[in-house]
């Protein structure tokens, strides 16, 4: 007797069989499980969302902190560039030279002001070195030409002449000519200017 014949033979017995109480409980638990399923996935989704939000917040905080630090560093640097002490200004210029790699208008303007107005030769020379980090900046190039026109401290004049030669700045020829023809120019400055002229004319 196969299974099919067995069922047909005992059909009545199977129909009379009542479902056990255990089965109800089992069914209910299965039903609950099935109904709770969507709730669980929602929780997981929210968890992911909160983790993602936390990461985003951390990244934002990181960027904000970095920005704030940079701004503080920048303000600190600008303050030192305007300090009355030549030592402090020098510290500022060297710090910019050693630690800052990006062009910043405010700092560049402060450095150009030093280039034109500072009274300490060391500060000016260090500033020229710092400005040479951005050789393609037109404002810097023009400022160096203006500076060589009016500078009177021999050592700074020499530094400016060498810098303009390094930049291959042909617009510096006229001021260089003036330096060469000026009777008051220190001889070593004249010879540097003459050498620069020869190089720029090549």
């Amino acid at each position, binding site marked *: 007797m196969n299974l099919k014949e067995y069922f047909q033979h005992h059909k009545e017995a199977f129909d009379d069989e009542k479902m056990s109480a255990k089965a109800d409980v089992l069914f209910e638990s299965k039903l609950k499980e099935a109904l709770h399923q969507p709730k669980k996935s929602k929780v997981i989704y929210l968890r992911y969302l909160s983790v993602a939000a936390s990461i985003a917040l951390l990244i934002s905080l990181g960027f904000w902190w970095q920005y704030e630090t940079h701004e503080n560093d920048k303000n600190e640097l600008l303050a030192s560039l305007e300090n009355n*002490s*030549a*030592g*402090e200004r*020098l*510290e500022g210029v*060297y710090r910019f030279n050693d630690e800052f790699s990006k062009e910043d208008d405010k700092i560049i303007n402060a450095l150009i002001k030093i280039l034109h107005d500072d009274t*300490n*030769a*060391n*500060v000016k*020379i*260090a500033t020229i070195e710092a400005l040479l980090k951005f050789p393609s900046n037109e404002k810097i190039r023009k400022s160096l030409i203006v500076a060589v026109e*009016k500078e*009177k*401290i*021999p*050592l700074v004049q*020499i530094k400016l002449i060498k810098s303009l030669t390094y930049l291959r700045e042909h617009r510096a020829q006229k001021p260089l000519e003036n330096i060469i023809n000026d*009777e*008051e*120019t*220190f*001889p*070593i400055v004249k010879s540097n200017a003459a050498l620069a002229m020869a190089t720029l004319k090549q």
Partner: protein
Amino acid sequence: MKKIQLIIVIVLASLQFGANAQEKKIKFSSGTLKICSSKNFKIKGYDGTEVIIKSLHEKRNSYRVISNFTQGTSNNLRLKGTVRSTKRAFPKRKGDTSYPRLLFTYSDTKRRVGLKRLGKKQENVDLGIYFTIEQKNGELIFKDETTGQFVMYNGESYEIMIPNTIKLNWDTNGCRESSSQKNSSRFFYSSNASSLSDFKGEVEISTSLNNMKLKDLTGPVSINSIGGNVTIEFDKKKPMKLYSIYSNNGFIDITLPSDSDLLVDAQGAAIYSDINFNVLSENQEVNKQKMRLKLKNGRTKMKLDAGLGNIYLRKK
């Protein structure tokens, strides 16, 4: 001809001093001491409140040697004091508008015996101090008298004690406002090295050809020189603040303790040392060497640029 004139001036000037060694004390404990003089100074820092000047040379006698190297007429020559005789050493040649002129003057000393020269300026001269002293806007200024003319002061030497609480700004070119000053191409210097030692304040030194010897300065120090040599020694102290030195062709020679906490950026014709530096970077071309050197954590920056001169870094 110019050389002969200069030699005569130096010889005469050096003959005209008499012994003197008195002190002048000036109350000055904050602000800037500005020395605008090419004379020889030995300056020392100390924990006090006065600037003390002591002349180490011999006091001048009544001869005065005045030289005018400016162009034009002799109207801009101003002779002070009782002048008995004045002679122009080299008569002006026709058509020559640019030549040095020398005047030798002599005061009659016998006539003033028992009298004292009046005037505030004379107080300094009596002490053998031949530069002007002025105090204004928080600055104490020592300045050579070189307006359009200059008197050769060869052989003059001063010892100055300065409080550690002040700032020193020392310009051997006379603090000239170059744009408004003629003869900016002329620099005068003393062959003997001036010195500065045991000072804790900020130092700015600007010189053309004068040699400088510095000892035990904690910094910050900034020095610039065209052809003068700079010698620095750390004996009892270590460099604590920024050192910045630029020279066109003078050497830079530094003796320092090998346990200094330093970051040295050195650039010159050649760099020599017996210190075991940590070499961070180096670049060498013909007659140009550039190095970044570190000792310990590199806390104090030292920026050295000797131009065409050499850099010597010695172990103490």
